[in-house]
């Protein structure tokens, strides 16, 4: 154990104290690893995850020396480096995170170093920070901690790019200063044997804008919890997600917008497609509007497109509201396959069925990709969607070639 009581209490002090809300969705958090039972799969927060495929990450698998290479660019004005010792310990709980799982508590307690992305106040970056994480060995269970600190009125885009083979548990903590404008994109384009558990916790300052995009294509099991809470009034969070699950893949996204301050906003849009036997996606969207959070606005949306038989899409938009003084709250969830009318319309215009299907899927994802708003990755996302489609919908190589020409 490398956590000292001092660092824990310092972290606790940073945590805004709120009355505990009695709900089965939010188990009580703790920095103490032993306060968390090893999950059995019956818990609400684990009920969909295939624990057997996590290689013990959810329990007590040893965190071994990393076999994942980590490289990044450093735009002028930003400080990005691996830190350890006291500095790393001081970053635990930076985002107000109090772990509610055993694995997250273990990451905070046992991982000695952190990757720190530090941006001073009033700094505006002109190019995105791109952190490439390339795994080389899925038999090694490892863990990581990333801390992002954005000063007041700063502006930045960070892209975490996961590729290769790895079995990794990662905690990413994000503190968005007052008035800052920050986008964090996490791309999971793993090889087929990767296992990835991650918890992204953000604390949004007064009048700050925070955008988080979770994009999951590859991996055996990918589970990401993207949570957000607010430090002061006026903060807004946009939580976006795009996922494409193939045969045998389990892709699980959970979000939790904890409205801890008045006049805050959260807006979530997650869109996914599923294809192949035993492709399984889970989306759980939790929104909690606390008593103090008057005048807030929230909307969550999840759309699933089922492309073949044998898939399973779970979609659960939970909403808990403790005050009636709100500007608006709602959610919507749909799961469906191709809309026959869309296909019919396109075919009536002389477009082949396959091509029409391709266009519908692109139409489904394109506005989301545009919302992510990072031009340098847009092309890549479009190409990946196309490559995914080629596996099932488009067995005809012609249209892929046509697309390559267009691109």
């Amino acid at each position, binding site marked *: 154990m490398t956590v000292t009581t001092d660092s824990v209490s310092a972290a606790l002090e940073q945590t805004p104290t709120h009355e505990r809300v*009695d709900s089965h969705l939010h188990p009580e958090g703790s920095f103490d690893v032993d306060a968390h039972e090893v999950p059995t799969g019956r818990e609400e927060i684990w009920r969909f995850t295939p624990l057997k495929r996590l290689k013990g990450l959810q329990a007590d698998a040893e965190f071994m020396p990393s076999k994942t290479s980590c490289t990044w660019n450093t735009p002028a004005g930003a400080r990005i480096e691996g830190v350890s010792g006291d500095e790393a310990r001081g970053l635990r709980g930076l985002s107000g995170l109090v772990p509610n799982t055993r694995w997250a508590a273990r990451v905070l307690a046992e991982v000695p170093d952190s990757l720190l992305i530090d941006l001073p106040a009033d700094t505006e970056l002109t190019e995105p920070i791109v952190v490439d994480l390339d795994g080389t060995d899925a038999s090694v269970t490892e863990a990581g901690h990333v801390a992002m600190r954005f000063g007041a009125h700063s502006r930045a885009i960070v892209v975490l790019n996961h590729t290769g083979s790895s079995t990794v548990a990662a905690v990413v903590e994000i503190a968005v200063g007052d008035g800052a404008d920050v986008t964090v994109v996490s791309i999971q384009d793993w090889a087929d044997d990767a296992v990835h558990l991650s918890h992204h916790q953000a604390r949004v300052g007064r009048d700050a804008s925070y955008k988080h995009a979770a994009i999951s294509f590859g991996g055996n099991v990918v589970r990401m919890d993207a949570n957000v809470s607010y430090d002061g009034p006026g903060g807004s969070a946009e939580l976006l997600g795009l996922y494409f699950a193939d045969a045998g893949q389990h892709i699980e996204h959970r979000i939790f917008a904890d409205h801890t301050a008045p006049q805050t906003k959260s807006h979530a849009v997650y869109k996914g497609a599923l294809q192949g036997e035993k492709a399984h996606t889970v989306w759980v969207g939790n929104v909690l509007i606390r008593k103090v959070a008057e005048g807030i606005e929230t909307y969550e949306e999840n759309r699933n497109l*089922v492309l073949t038989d044998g898939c399973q899409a779970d979609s659960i938009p*939970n*909403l*808990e509201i403790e005050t*009636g003084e709100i500007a608006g709250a709602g959610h919507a*969830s749909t799961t469906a396959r191709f809309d026959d009318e869309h296909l019919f319309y396109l075919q009536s215009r002389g477009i082949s069925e396959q091509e029409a299907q391709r266009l519908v899927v692109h139409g489904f994802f394109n506005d989301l990709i545009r919302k992510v708003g990072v031009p340098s990755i847009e092309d890549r996302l479009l190409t990946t969607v196309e490559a995914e489609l080629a596996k099932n919908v488009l067995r005809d190589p012609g249209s892929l070639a046509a697309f390559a020409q267009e691109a």
Partner: protein
Amino acid sequence: MTSIEELNPTLKGIGNYEFGWSDSDDAGATATRGLNEDVVRDISGKKSEPQWMLDLRLKGLKLFHRKPMPTWGSDLGGIDFDNIKYFVRSSEKQATSWEDLPEDIKNTYDKLGIPEAEKQRLVAGVAAQYESEVVYHSIREDLEEKGVIFVDTDTALKEHEDLFKEYFGTVIPVGDNKFSALNTSVWSGGSFIYVPKGVHVDIPLQAYFRINTENMGQFERTLIIADEDSYVHYVEGCTAPIYSSDSLHSAVVEIIVKKGARVRYTTIQNWSNNVYNLVTKRATCEAGATMEWVDGNIGSKVTMKYPAIYLMGEHAKGETLSIAFAGEGQHQDAGAKMVHAAPHTSSSILSKSVARGGGRTSYRGLIQVNEGAHGSKSNVLCDALLVDQISRSDTYPYVDIREDDVSMGHEASVSKVSDDQLFYLMSRGMEQDEAMAMIVRGFVEPIAKELPMEYALELNRLIELQMEGAVG
């Protein structure tokens, strides 16, 4: 300011809960508390039941002790299973005319307006359950001639044992959950309905459930079998006196809707605010059949109720309309479950809830589309209205789709009563209370209009009472 009561003199004299009186309680005073094998054997013995039923009860008891309390919903910590009276016999024999009923029970039902409804032929049959057993029972003669069976469940076991045995526990198995196990071990009373092939029961069958004893546990068991192409509408209402300590109502309702039949089941639950209402309701629908739950939850301390429909045959259809009001100290955890197990099935859920005065409403639902149920459609709409800053509203919709050719939509919205709406109505000369009540009535109208007339009126009256003083 003019209160609603002054505007509507008929409302005067009605307290916040008008069914809160209690009768003298001789039967209840002597009833034993607590649950063990002897209690179960005693209940079965008093009813002179066949051995198989006793065995089933004992199995239920075992499963009840073994199953854990559900922790995912409301706080059930206040239930003291050892303090509950599991069986209270209020009257030695069942009456078929109101005159034969003991005086105090007759008065109770007079106050509830039941003989009136029957006299006016608003209902096709009536059952009244007081404590653990049905005390009054009647059905229109012409329906009886057509072969419609409408009796209390205890009588059904005696008189129609074969039919009973064929269906009892087939929709909700003994060990389905802790409370269905409890119900199976100590069940008593409830309605048993059999509608033969092609028979349409055109006006509703009605049942009234009343708890009188303090710390009483009411465990009625209802079984409805609608044979092919038949139709029946069953309506139940529930009330209880206000006591300082809690009572438990844990019913099990099983419905079998055969090919092409249609069943509508309407509940207006208005238990007093000291009743834990933990009910398991489930229907199976064969091909082309329709099941409709109309579920109104107004009373009780805690309600956990998720009427389920299993769509087992092609083109079966399920519909749930649910409405919940939670006032001070109340938690209405209601919703619906739809399981699509056959192709081209469709379901729709419409849920509306209003929370005020620190009450909590939760919508908890499940839409499950099994593999092979292609072409299924499901639509869920839940709206919640919060009228103040201290109430709470939650939405927990579970969706599990295992088939590609389906269309499923879920939408929820939570809103407060808008100032614009209030201002408009008040600019037309309405008092604030009255305007508020009108907005709430408008909000629940899509469901209220599905209720039988007298219940719709009752609901409107309850809304006005509930909303009175809701505006700070």
